[in-house]
């Protein structure tokens, strides 16, 4: 029997009662996005795995304690993921520049090495952006969210996200020393 897709508000309402089907639906709907977000930010699949799993366990704790997200569940999940990424970097500040699985392209050995080197530079540059800029770029490019979706997740206006995106990219351009000629 096909299941109608309940909207986020309905899901949240049932999730507050720890309804099994609602929780399962929430996990299947958002796990991929949260995993990709964490992978984009950290560059390591095992860290992304830990962070994504932890985000959902924290959701359960919040629901159980009556601190369930009130407005946007998706935004809440990304927010927790963002905090966990920050915690990860606080614990292991230099760890994630060693290997990058999110940005490196497959290729020959030398191409791979070159690619890894470039990816390391890019990741270092990303880490120097403000936390909000990093969050926005991860949503836009790691998860492929539109500006409108990013605005909804971040609780900002579309124009504010456009400005944030512009400033993040401009900063990135400077940090990567991309010339006018590209």
């Amino acid at each position, binding site marked *: 029997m096909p299941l109608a897709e309940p909207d986020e*508000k309905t899901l949240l309402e049932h999730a507050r009662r720890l309804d099994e089907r609602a929780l399962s639906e929430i996990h299947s709907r958002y796990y*991929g996005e949260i995993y990709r977000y964490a992978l984009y930010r950290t560059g390591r699949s095992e860290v992304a795995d830990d962070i994504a799993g932890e985000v959902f366990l924290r959701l359960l704790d919040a629901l159980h304690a009556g601190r369930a997200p009130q407005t946007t569940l*998706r935004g809440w999940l990304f927010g927790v993921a963002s905090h966990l990424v920050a915690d990860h970097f606080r614990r292991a500040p230099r760890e994630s520049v060693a290997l990058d699985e999110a940005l490196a*392209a497959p290729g020959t050995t030398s191409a791979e090495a070159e690619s890894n080197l470039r990816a390391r530079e890019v990741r270092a540059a990303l880490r120097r952006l403000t936390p909000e800029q990093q969050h926005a770029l991860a949503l836009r490019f790691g998860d492929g969210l539109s500006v409108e979706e990013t605005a909804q997740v971040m609780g900002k206006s579309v124009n504010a996200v*456009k400005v944030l995106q512009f400033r993040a990219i401009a900063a990135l351009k400077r940090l990567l020393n991309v010339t006018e000629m590209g």
Partner: protein
Amino acid sequence: MNDGVLIEALDDCLRAMEAGATLEAVLARHPQLADELRPMLTAVQSVRPMQPLRVPRQSEEASHARFMARARELRRSHSRAARGRWSRFSLVPRLALAVLALALGGFGVVTASTNSLPGDPLYGVKRTVEQAQLSLAPAEARPALEREFEQRRLAETQAVLTQQREVEVEFTGLVQAVIGERWQIAGFTVQVRAGLAGDAGVGDTVKVWGRTRADGLIIAARLEKRAEGGMPAPTPTAEPSATPPAPTTQAPALTATPQITETSRPTAIPPTATPTPGTGVSPAPMNTLPPTPAITNTVSPTMSPPATVAPAPIVTAAPTTSPPTTVAPTSTGDDTETPEPEEIEFEGVVESTGGVWVIGGQTVVVNAQTEFRNNPQTGDWVRVKAWRLTDGTLVARRIEKKN
């Protein structure tokens, strides 16, 4: 240059590139800003993954298993807390109950009614007290109380069937199978006449009002589809999400992962399904779904090896103490040969256990013949050897925990 113009131009370029346009093509849309846009878009190219980021199915399944296991733990502690709150409930409702109890003829009557069954003289007292408890309970304690009463109705129905009594019963449970007018609901065989059930079907949670018969059948007088676990009943048209998900078509791992939902639960023909061991009532095998844990915890279907499970046509739900082979079609010459079950192997994470396991999104029936190696538990990665019956049911031969 005005930043506002550049911000809009950059956004326009990014949208066009996301739609598949090349760098040169998008720059051509803004020739006067091309020199400023080019390095920015080049920077974007370096931070945009070469391919959509892949979500490993194993990660998602393991997380799902942990998540659901933790949810079950919390639900249990929630129920205990609710019961605790009830027991420490404030004086006013307690006094109200006491008054009610006295009005009903004293504490002795209420106590005596506790173990009464449908048809007993004191059964009405028991239900009245329950109603009073429900109406006086604080809102947060009500769901747990309702679940408790639903469990009581199931136990009572089982008890009167065991005693071969013919009385009015009501209970709520999952529709596990439908064959003609014979329905398997919460482990009971129920006769549901055509048109009584509306659009309810296999996988739905329903409330049944009916009458038990000495032969173990329940004749439904009324049947109502319920929202399972409080979820709204599925509707044919999906309501648009308030926050539409990101374009996940590029992430097949997310959308292709089977979930434990009605849509992926196979209808199954377990070898035998007895409502409760020792009752002497063994409904014939039917197309079934695993029982809903919240309601049918007390129901533990027993299974025979699949070799004995020839898909028997259900012509009667009269109780039988014989194994299902006795009702399997014998070779009469005009019947087609019973297909052999196929043996398969697969690996996955154990998402839930019980009479029916969910492993890697697949529902697997276990029985007394299933061999368990290395004590597999929820969350473990296991290798499964199973028979796939002709209807798709998987019956586990062996479940082995892998390192």
